[in-house]
């Protein structure tokens, strides 16, 4: 995983609330046994028609959306299924951060473990972002701040250990493996049933 320090990008806006992980990546693409290659199927049923042609009215198919790394979504994005294929698909497509007022628990956890930054902001900031698609924003992980084009900086919460891992490009498994002595003590104390 590459370390994340600062993400600078224009935004893509999908204002719908409750965008579930079945929309992000429909179940029929889950029969894969690898992590790669899901970007082309991201939002497949909104993005393509029944013959597989891009729907021109879908935001990701608009020329302005090309190359954007920050997705601004309506409240409660990522609800539903625990499929990690959702952040895998977003990352494979090219997104590096998702901004909303609320991000569903499992999706947020999965995103953090893959270097997709979940950014939760207040209603007012969210409202501004929804109203200004294509705004150039800067997400500074060291400062836990989202900077808007007018220079305003909005703080966002992020779990301290996840932030440390993201900034240093390390995964949590190494840390857990380093705790084996504590795990063994726990197992022994409980009788290791």
């Amino acid at each position, binding site marked *: 995983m590459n370390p994340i320090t600062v993400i600078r990008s224009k935004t893509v806006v999908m204002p719908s609330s409750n965008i579930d992980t*079945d*929309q992000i990546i*429909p179940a029929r693409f*889950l029969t894969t046994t690898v992590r790669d290659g899901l970007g082309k199927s991201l939002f497949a*049923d909104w993005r393509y028609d029944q013959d597989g042609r891009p729907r021109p009215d879908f935001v990701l198919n608009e020329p302005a959306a090309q190359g954007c790394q920050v997705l601004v979504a309506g409240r409660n994005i990522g609800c*539903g299924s625990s*499929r990690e294929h959702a952040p895998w698909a977003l990352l494979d497509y090219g997104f590096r951060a998702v901004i909303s007022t609320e991000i*569903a628990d499992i999706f947020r956890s999965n995103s953090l473990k893959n270097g997709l930054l979940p950014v939760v902001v207040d209603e007012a900031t969210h409202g501004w972002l929804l109203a200004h698609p294509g705004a150039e924003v800067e997400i500074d992980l060291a400062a836990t701040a989202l900077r808007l084009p007018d220079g305003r900086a909005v703080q966002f919460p992020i779990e301290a250990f996840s932030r440390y891992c993201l900034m240093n490009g390390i995964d949590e498994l190494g840390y857990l493996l380093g*705790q084996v002595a504590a795990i063994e003590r726990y197992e022994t104390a409980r009788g290791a049933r």
Partner: protein
Amino acid sequence: MTAKSLFEKVWDRHVVVPETPDTPAILYIDLHLVHEVTSPQAFDVLRARGLPVRRLDRTLATMDHSTPTDRAQIFGGAPIKLESAAKQVRQLEVNCAEFGVNLLGLRDERRGIVHIIGPEQGATQPGKTIVCGDSHTSTHGAFGALAFGIGTTEVGYVLATQCLLQRKPRTFAVDVRGRLPAGVTAKDLVLAIIGQTGVNGGTGHVIEYRGPAIEALSMDERMTVCNMSIEGGARAGMVAPDATTYAYLKGRPCAPAGADWDAAVVDWDTLRSDPGAVFDKQVHIDAATIEPMITFGTNPGMVTTIGGAVPERPGDAVFAKALAYMGLQPGERMAEKPVQVVFIGSCTNARLSDLEAAAKVLRGRKVASGVRALVVPGSQQIKREAEQLGLAQVFIDAGAEWRESGCSMCLGMNGDLVDAGQYCISTSNRNFEGRQGIGARTLLASPASAAAAAVRGRVTDPREFLG
């Protein structure tokens, strides 16, 4: 000592290393359930790092999601039709053989939907921490376990270390007073709860369902309620263990026996929330006011009574988009809406009592012409029991398809699909756009309501078939 909730007691027992401002808690996992869709990449991580599975005795695998429900493809020697699904099934077999994981495989008589076989085998027990790469792991909370869905990366963590890094969630008491009226089921109850608390009401929380109406539920019914906790945004939902729980578990293959059983019950009895336990959030529901429910929209919070109508929300673009997808109008009545497909199955409602409820309506009746009805038992054991009890014959005589167990049409990964534009009344848990097939329109309801709609070919109050 401060009063503790059920959740806090189970949490505290499993803390290997407490959380600090800089690091989450290390939480020990007692039971890890594994299935074919969310595990292959996790096994790859173990392979790449040269790691074994830390506790094979705490790991149990089965196949359900992309697995066929067609008898010929499981037992008849016919190839699994979907090539990618066949590959995934084979990959789980290879991974389990290589790492030594106990697999209830394709032809195993104990196979079934992962959240149905855990309880069925008695592996799901009060006070345990249980995880699986599937959001409906919340089902196991019905036993007073702390059970929640995880992603594939975390599947790898648990395989390698039997632990997860977790911040302690907040607590949410859903207090259900009174008794459910006759003909109103646990599915109606949980849909009504989500209708009230919203699809994000439980985010960041673990729910404890409590109160007289919950205590009166059977284990099957408690599982239905806890199963849909995630549809209300909560990763986990729990019910305090009691005599009902113990009666269900006693004698099951993985349950403690003899003196161990007696000791376990004494311990489990200490798990219930102390009087005065404080919850971060609380709602009260009156069970007596609940009626048979049905969803009209594209998330489980978009729900009304079967006798009710689609609400009107002028100016709400997201709501309008959902109704457009569903082909419904604001103010339109749900009853009498024609359906083309009926799905009775899933980890929400494919246990024996669910099949009994559906068979009660379908006995001596026919599935309406032009309606396709699919009945998919939750496990091979439930399938055998339903066949022995004559329930399967009721479904077959009615003209329904009787399948092998699996997730099937709940998410359509295995080729069991609803066509675009069709209405499917479904006993599953999600009515998301495209969930049951591209353009499919899902109406979530109870097994009795689904069976009633199968007979009439239209959305029908199942109480018409009572008595």
